[in-house]
């Protein structure tokens, strides 16, 4: 059940690499990283998901939080989600409000 979120902000783009399992236990940690990067007013948020092995609804709640914290004009890009994670995002309609990219398209 390990989870890590490493972020950096450069030229208006905030990038967060998620590693491990984003679920009820780890959502608070992710929310704190989102709050940190949003304080730097990025105009784009890129989440690198290729090492995210598990995502539950508690993690999706963090995505909603990111949306609302960053504001409407900020694009959220999800890169390289593993198949099960991508399926979960689609099942809950988040693919309509974010841009989903294959890793090579990043």
């Amino acid at each position, binding site marked *: 059940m390990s989870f890590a979120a490493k972020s950096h902000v450069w030229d208006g783009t905030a990038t967060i690499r998620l590693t491990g399992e984003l679920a009820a*236990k780890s959502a608070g940690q992710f929310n704190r990283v989102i709050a940190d990067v949003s304080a730097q007013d990025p105009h784009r948020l890129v989440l690198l998901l290729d090492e995210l092995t598990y995502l*539950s609804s508690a993690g999706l709640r963090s995505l909603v939080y990111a949306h609302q914290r960053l504001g409407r004009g900020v694009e959220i890009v999800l890169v390289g989600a593993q198949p099960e994670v991508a399926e979960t995002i689609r099942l809950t309609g988040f693919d309509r*409000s974010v841009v989903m990219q294959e890793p090579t398209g990043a």
Partner: protein
Amino acid sequence: MTTAKSTVDDIGARVAEVVRSLAARAALTRAQAYRLRLAADEIATNIVLHGYGGEGEVGLCGGVAEDHVWLRTEDSAPPFDPRDHDPSPVLTADPATRAPGGLGVHLALAAVDELRYEQVAGLNHTTLVVYRDA
């Protein structure tokens, strides 16, 4: 004596452990095991959070049958049948502005092949089934 009640912080790991063991015995595919774990995590986390208000006892059961794997939660929180929950208001809302939450039961129902709910001796029994033929 520790209280050992489950909390939102540990129930997920317990569920994952049971699913790992069932998946190994039943030779589930990675996708099947993932779906069972996701559904069980959502159901069990809700029991702890909404049923008990933060912490409480959740019994976990599991078995491998000829054509399916099953996992059941047992709890003594107030009755709650996940099949009665309608997620459509949340799903049709704009994700950017909708209220957070309200997705767990929807995901659980979508992830498994069957979800059964019964009250047995005053307890909630919620049983999740994943078919073994991929």
